[in-house]
Each structure stands twice: as C-alpha cells, then as structure tokens.
C-alpha cells in the first residue's frame, strides 16, 4: 500500500511540474494555431474550424492572415513587430552561440587555473569574479552603454555578445572550477610523468573529462544570453540587430496585438532553445551519469 501511495504522490508531483513547465508551451502552441476570433469567442468551437497556420505564414512571409481580411476584423492588431521575429531569431541565435563559445573559450581555462594552480591574488580575483553578478544590472546599463558607445558597438550584435559573455562568465568559471577541482591530482601527476606540459594536461586530460560540464555551462550561457532583455534593448538599436527578447517585449507591450500572432512568436522563439537542449542535453546527462559511477 505504502509503495502504491508513494508512486501515486510521485506521479502527482511530476504531473504538477509538467503542468507548470510544459503547460505554457502547449498553451502557446494552442494559441498560435487558433485564430483570435475563435480563441476569444466562447460560442465558436475550434473543432468546427480546425487548425490554422496563417499567423506562421505571416511571420515568415508577410502575407496577412485571411481571418483579418474578413469584414469587421481589426487590422491594427497585426503588429509589424511580428515581422521582425525571423531576423531577431537569427540575431539571437548568433549572439547566444557566440556568447556560449566565448564562455567556454575563456571560462574553461580560467576555471582550470583557479582549480589547479596557486598564484598571488587567487582568492581575491576568484571572489571578484564570483561576486560580480551581485551588482544590479540596472546600475550597469548606463556605464556599459557609454563604454559600448565609445567602442562604436551600439546597434550591432557584437556589443551584446560581449556583455552577455561577461554576464555568464562568473557562473561558467564557478561551475567548471568546482568540476576541475574534483579531478584527482594524481591524474595530472601521471600526466606530468607522461611528459605532458601544463597546457597539454589541460587539453588532453582535464578538457575531455570536463566535456559534460562544459556542455552544461555552455547551455546555461546560451539560455542566459537568449533571454537577456535590458542590455539587448539598450545596445541593439535598430530592428536589424534586435535580438528576439527585445522584439518579443515590443509585441507583448502592444495591448492591441493579436493573441494568435503573439503566441506564434512565442512558440517560434522557443524553438532554438529546444533544439539546443535536445542536441546537448542527452550528452550532458550521459556524461553526468558516467561520472557518477565511481571510476
């Protein structure tokens, strides 16, 4: 009985978690494939009309949805901002991938050095890096804007890449240094006897072992960058270089916006993250499991 009860509660809690995480995604998808007048009118059943992908067509081609060409439909609900979604998606993907790559490229060696070497100022510099995210983002917006302006990086994705890299770097360094510290020192001593230099010890021993952790932190950096709003807004400038978070905010702020258009944009915006998670996650979990079986 007790076992049945615990299985039931497990299922219940899992169901609740699924409801809160998967629910909104499903709702967004539902809202995106049902035209507004059907969605908002309790007297019309969706079953009578079937699914409609016209808002998707609008976002990608600009062809107005048929339901808004009908008499009495409010044309102003079709926001131009939705047309920026594909370009912004491309921008965000480039920004997030670049921030992810820079995080791994800069964070992994830094974490390794913090974990394995003693040098003057190690503790202070580590604390400085780890505690830096405590500074409120809003306090940094103006100084960073001025800095980027002087570098001529306003209105391009490069400025955003730099800021997003810096934002995720403390976490990357922290997580990876914890991992590198867990690798037994004897492994590196064996490598020294096997004629490895410090750099080779990092590249040939530490790095391959850390791949799952690097995957996880890279994913984290990607998602942090992908959803970041304030710096993206301030530094992006015109539509050409706007990331998806900024475009989505513009869409959501528009009180007249078509629900199905908004939901369509939301659902499209989730896709890059989903793809990356599916690609990287299995690898991350596999790596974590392999590590947990004591070797």
């Amino acid at each position, binding site marked *: 009985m007790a076992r049945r009860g615990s299985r039931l509660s497990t299922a219940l809690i899992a169901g609740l978690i699924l409801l809160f995480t998967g629910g909104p995604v499903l709702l967004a998808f539902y809202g995106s494939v049902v035209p507004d007048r059907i969605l908002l009118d309790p007297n019309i059943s969706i079953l009578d009309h079937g699914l409609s992908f016209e808002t998707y067509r609008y976002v990608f081609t600009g062809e107005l949805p048929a339901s808004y060409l009908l008499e009495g439909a409010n044309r102003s609900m079709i926001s131009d901002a939705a047309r920026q979604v594909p370009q912004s998606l491309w921008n965000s993907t480039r920004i997030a991938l670049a921030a992810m790559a820079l995080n791994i490229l800069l964070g992994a060696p830094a974490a390794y050095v913090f974990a394995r070497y003693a040098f003057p100022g190690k503790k202070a510099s580590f604390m400085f890096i780890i505690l830096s995210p405590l500074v409120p983002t809003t306090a940094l917006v103006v100084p960073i804007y001025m800095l980027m302006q002087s570098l001529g990086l306003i209105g391009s994705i490069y400025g955003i890449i730099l800021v997003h890299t810096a934002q995720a770097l403390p976490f990357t360094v922290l997580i990876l240094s914890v991992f590198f510290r867990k690798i*037994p020192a*004897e*492994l590196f*001593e*064996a*490598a*020294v*006897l*096997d*004629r*490895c230099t410090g750099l*080779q010890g990092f590249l040939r*021993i530490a790095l*391959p*072992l850390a791949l799952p952790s690097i995957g996880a932190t890279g994913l984290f950096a990607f998602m942090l960058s992908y959803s970041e709003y304030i710096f993206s807004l301030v530094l992006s400038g015109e539509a050409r270089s706007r990331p998806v978070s900024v475009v989505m905010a513009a869409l959501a702020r528009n009180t007249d916006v078509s629900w199905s258009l908004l939901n369509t944009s939301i659902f499209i915006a989730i896709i890059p993250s989903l793809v990356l998670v599916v690609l990287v996650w299995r690898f991350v979990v596999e790596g974590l499991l*392999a590590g947990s*079986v004591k*070797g």
Partner: protein
Amino acid sequence: MASVELSGVCKNFGAVEAVCDVSLSIKDREFVVFVGPSGCGKSTLLRMIAGLEEITSGELRIGGKRMNDVPAADRGIAMVFQSYALYPHMTVAENMGFGLKMSGVPKEEVRAKVAQAAAVLQIEELLDRKPRALSGGQRQRVAIGRAITRNPGVFLFDEPLSNLDAGLRAQMRIEIARLHAELDATMIYVTHDQVEAMTLADRIVVMNKGRVEQQGSPLDLYERPDNMFVASFLGQPRINFIQVRAESREGMAVLRLGAGDQVPLPPALSAAVEPGAALTLGIRPDAVGLSGEAADGSVAGSIELVEHLGSETLIHVRLPEMVGLTTVTMPGKGRVERGAACWLTFDPEQILLFDAGGTRLKPGAA
C-alpha cells in the same frame, strides 16, 4: 644502470619538516620498501625521487646523475599510484601508450610496446576497454602496465595495493614479486603494510617522523631491530613489550617482572645489562611458550582471550600488574580455556631488551 642515491635529502612544507636528512643508497635492481605509519614522510620521499615534489635540500642521483632539477619525465622513472590514476576517457591501450605517444614515439612502436606489456600482465583482452569497465585488480594491472611501457630504470610504487581487498592484495603481491624478477629493474615501493614490506623487499627502510629509523633485510630488521619503534612496526601479531627491572643473581643478570617472577638472560645479553636498570623486554609471540605448569624462569598469568585463526591460535595472556596483554601464538587449533592459569616461558635467544629511551641493548661479549 639505475641505482638511486639520496644524500641528506630534506623536504619542508613551510615550517613543517616532512622528510629530514635522509641518506640512502639503492643498488641497481634492488627492491627497496619504504615502510612506516601514515605521515612518516615515506610517500613524500618517493614523490621527491619521482620529481613530483621539489627537494628542499640534499641531493638525488639516479644512475649516477644528479636529478634534483631534472623534470619528472626525464628521470627514467615510472610511477604506479595508489588510486591508479588511469585516464578515465582513454582506453586501456591508450592509457598504456600515452607516455610514449607524448614522447613522439611512432604509432606502430607504441602499439608493439603496449602489446608486449599487456602480454606480461595478461591483460591483452582488456586493451579496448575504458578503465571504468575494469575491476580494481584489473585497473591495478593496467597502471603497472602503463609503467612498464615506459621501460624505466626505476619503478616507483606508492601504496599500490591499499585499494584492493585482502585476497587480491595477496595475489598482486606475488605478481609484483614476479615482475621484479622478470623486468630486472630497480623498484622502490611505499607501503604502510608490514606484510607487503616483509614479503617483497630485498631491503626495508623503516621511516618515522620524516627520518629513517633503520634499514636492512626483512629478517635482519625482524630479528635485530634497533629500537622499539622498528620492533613494534614489523611482525604480525605485534611484538610483546613487558616492563622489567634488571637484577643480579649469582653473577648473572635476570629480569624481574612486576609480580616478582624472574626471567633469566643468556650470557651475551646478560653482560650488556646494568643491574637495577628499568628496561623493556621485547619478545615475539612465536618465541613465547605456554604451559599449564610452572617451570624455572616461567612467568605466571591467566588466559584472557583466545583467537582461533585456523592454522594458528593467538592466546592473549594477562600477566599480573601489567597494563597490556601478552600475546602468544601456538601452531594448530590448540584447545585452550579462557580464564585458566598458565605459565609463560620466553625463548632466551629471542629476547630483545630496550633501554628507557627505546634503543635496543646489543649483546656484549659473554
């Protein structure tokens, strides 16, 4: 030629002196075991020879060449670690060949050497596996195989068997002894297990608190320890120590135990003893005889605990006015009753006497 010479070697970690003024001369092809309790500096000494730890002062020579400032990889040594330290992401073959690969040895040659070492250790069928798919004993073999492929002049073993269970440990011990005979290399082996030390070593170096207490062949150390530390460290079960006072009887020294029993001494030892001195008598459990009747020079006690090990029996006897128990080993499964009165006799030839400072009294001329 791969002799190892240490002269006046010291190692300080800040203010802590881990190894102090160690001088050793290890001959080519010798099997030397460093033994001692945890923290005695034996591993540090080994790591200094390996080049993983800097030498604070003193000199290290391998094969006659000064090695203090030579990088670890160029010292012609190979090391087997306690945790095996196999690279988890490489297969067994890659693990074994990694050192050669890093030295720029051609692939074919690496493969041949790995195969050769694998044959010696009978691990050919494991070459494609990852370390995590191996048992502890197999991992240990791979770790040794990795050392063999480097074809070093000196093998260094840092407690290589302490992570294995008792049965496997005995098996690997034999394996290592066989390898030493086969490979013709100098081996330096660190352990805190005195059985490994006694069985493997040509020479044992007993260390304590960063210093060498005594060195010599296993039996030499067992029979003629310089002091109480060495005597207590080697031998299983441990040597018995009994507080005694020397007295003179008819011109010969005898030892008087707390309760008044007297133990006669052989003439050679008797000459070395000053009457009236407080001494410690050391006697191995196998040199104590146990009988149910009193005899001349026997010591009365009562049996407090009996341990049957099958091939032998350990009998722990309480002597009057003594703090610890005295252990006696008897061959076979002798039936002894707990609580019974008994009399112990000490083989006079095997009695060791230590002065108040713990140093052994050497037998003088009779």
